[in-house]
């Protein structure tokens, strides 16, 4: 198994990693003297869903396709918004409560573009990138999260 999958050029960086996401490095990557705004979105493991307690999330990823889809949605975002640079990273494996499972950084000349592109990127990632989370509940049970599918 390969630990890290990456795809990087001058304005786009993509990573899937078993290690903690280095958001500082992502912010350095998107920094540009053409940009006046940088947005960083982080998704983190939440302890409570309603009244149920989560101890950790275990992620699984179809790495080669996930990198391809992340690249495609960044290219599509580029056709919609004139941002300067963007960086996207997703964890695989175990992500404990409070840790970051996904991060997206976008820089742009003005904040509206950076906010809109970052929001669209995380919404679209959650719909099309082949990554799954398994809830590990405090009572010891585990459950794959598949929106729209409920076991009967």
């Amino acid at each position, binding site marked *: 198994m390969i630990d890290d999958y990456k795809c990087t050029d001058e304005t786009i960086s993509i990573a899937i990693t078993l290690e903690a996401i280095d958001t500082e490095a992502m912010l350095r990557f998107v920094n540009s003297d053409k940009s006046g705004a940088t947005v960083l979105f982080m998704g983190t493991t939440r302890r409570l869903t309603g009244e149920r307690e989560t101890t950790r999330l275990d992620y699984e990823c*179809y790495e080669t396709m996930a990198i391809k889809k992340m690249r495609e949605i960044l290219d599509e975002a580029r056709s919609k918004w004139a941002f300067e640079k963007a960086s996207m990273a997703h964890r695989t494996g175990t992500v404990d409560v409070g840790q970051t499972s996904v991060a997206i950084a976008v820089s742009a000349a003005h904040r509206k573009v950076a906010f809109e592109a970052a929001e669209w990127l*995380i919404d679209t990632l*959650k*719909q099309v990138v082949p*990554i*799954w989370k398994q809830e590990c509940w405090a009572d010891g049970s585990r459950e794959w999260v*598949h929106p729209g*599918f409920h076991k009967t």
Partner: protein
Amino acid sequence: MIVKVLLFASAKQLVGESHIELGLDDEATLGSAKASLIEHYPMLMNLLPKCTFSVDQEYAEDARPLYHGCEVACIPPVSGG
């Protein structure tokens, strides 16, 4: 032809394998691969209609022709983020 089918999340859990190989007719499409998958792994019956499929890391429809050695993946509803 023989195609490799990758299984993820609940699909992997139900079958107990991360990938399987399917022997198919030379004219097989993704649709016929799905039919063969349910026939050999009936535990996927309820989940499969909710899954999308990819061929060589691209989402694909049932009419997509397959070829020997291609990489098919069964993709249950995704939950990244």
